[in-house]
């Protein structure tokens, strides 16, 4: 039995701080193509000049870049800034307008997925309850735009959590095909991140030590997962990830039959150009683990 193959991509988030100081957007796109990756992920309000109204000439330039480097747009990151105003909270209608703005722009740039980051109302990052009505108001637009809206499951929120249950319940209740889950692999982190310069033990937020989600928990939500951000922080010269247990994650994703994207999200030290090298290491590591899994599961000859 052959297993489904992953698709490989990179989020330009990986090159934060570098893009605009030591890398152009074009440098970054070329670096993604050089990995033999097929997918590119962006953040709307970071990588689109003149957001939310880019010049028409830039949109032409964007499609020319995709064609030259043979890349497909994957996921587009957006925000619903519920704290936009100090004076009052955001309404569901305003949040829906923000979602619509980004769905339209994402579709115009060729993206099939939009990850909205909703503002939160609690210490454990429960999203503002307006998310439900806001999303319901734009489901038709998402359908007509051929876009899937996919909030991310991100540390410190694990898979087994009321926030995730609520998203799944929303999919089941509405029956929509235009809403899904995005998994950020930071939830599987099982070793502590190094302390930031100047960070004292009192300042440490617990989840930076890793929330240790069991990779097998993925199986319970696999039917709803449309995208994976392959979050990581540091990979050594020996291709060992110091925080994310890929050797356990990759086989589990294969067993789940996941055939979507692994889209690199480097979130480590921001020394100039370090991101370029770290992303290359992660692609080498993930592809090696997938090849090894495939070799083990191939039926014996004859």
């Amino acid at each position, binding site marked *: 039995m052959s297993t489904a193959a992953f698709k490989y991509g990179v989020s330009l*988030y990986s090159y934060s*701080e570098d893009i605009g100081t030591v890398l152009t957007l074009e440098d970054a796109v070329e670096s993604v193509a050089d990995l033999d990756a097929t997918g590119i992920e962006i953040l709307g309000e*970071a990588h689109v*000049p003149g957001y939310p109204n880019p010049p028409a000439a830039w949109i032409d330039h964007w499609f020319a870049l995709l064609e030259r480097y043979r890349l497909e747009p994957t996921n587009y990151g957006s*925000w619903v800034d519920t704290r936009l105003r100090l004076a009052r909270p955001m309404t569901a209608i305003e949040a829906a307008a923000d979602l619509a703005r980004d769905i339209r722009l994402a579709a115009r740039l060729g993206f099939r997925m939009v990850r909205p980051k909703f503002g939160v109302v609690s210490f454990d*990052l429960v999203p503002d309850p307006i998310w439900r009505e806001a999303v319901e108001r734009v489901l038709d637009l998402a359908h007509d735009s051929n876009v899937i809206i996919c909030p991310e499951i991100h540390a410190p929120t694990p898979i087994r959590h009321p926030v995730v249950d609520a998203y799944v319940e929303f999919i089941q209740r509405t029956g929509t095909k235009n809403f899904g889950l995005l998994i950020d692999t930071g939830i599987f982190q099982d070793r502590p991140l190094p302390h930031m310069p100047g960070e004292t033990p009192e300042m440490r937020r617990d989840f930076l030590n890793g929330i240790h989600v069991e990779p097998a928990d993925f199986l319970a939500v696999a039917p709803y997962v449309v995208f994976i951000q392959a979050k990581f922080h540091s990979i050594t010269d020996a291709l060992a990830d110091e925080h994310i247990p890929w050797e356990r994650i990759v086989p589990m994703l294969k067993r789940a039959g996941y055939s979507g994207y692994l889209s690199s999200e480097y979130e480590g030290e921001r020394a100039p150009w370090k991101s370029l090298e770290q992303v290359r290491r992660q692609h080498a590591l993930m592809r090696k683990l997938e090849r090894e899994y495939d070799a083990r599961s191939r039926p014996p000859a004859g």
Partner: protein
Amino acid sequence: MGNRGTRQMAGEGAAMLERHLVQSVGFRNTGPAGARDGFEFRLRLPYYRGIPASLCDGVAVSVDGESFGFEGNRIELDGRELSLGALREAVDVRWRIDQAAIVRVPRPGGLAVGVHAITVDVRLRQSYFPPQFQPSIVTETRAATIVL
């Protein structure tokens, strides 16, 4: 005033910014020679995405140990100079990551010609962090030179 414009104002596309938050280019005294009334500098957004300007809750500045509170400094974005109150309501103005803001600080006499240690505390409200951690404050110090 000695400000003869920037590339972003001329609409010539985004320039590469310096890695430091406070840019060396653009650090200058304001007001006529002999009657300086303050200083200004260009500031890169310390964040990985652009934001509606209202999510910036001001910028505190300190130069060689002398503090200028965030309440009294003004910020220019897209050619609009905003007091703290106006900044907090500027939901339709955006601070892009490829666009330095101009921070203006009142100080009679301006700053002396020469190299200064300048520190910024950039205050940002992030909707997706727990409310008790807001605003986030990003601090950076660098050496920068007043030419005139």
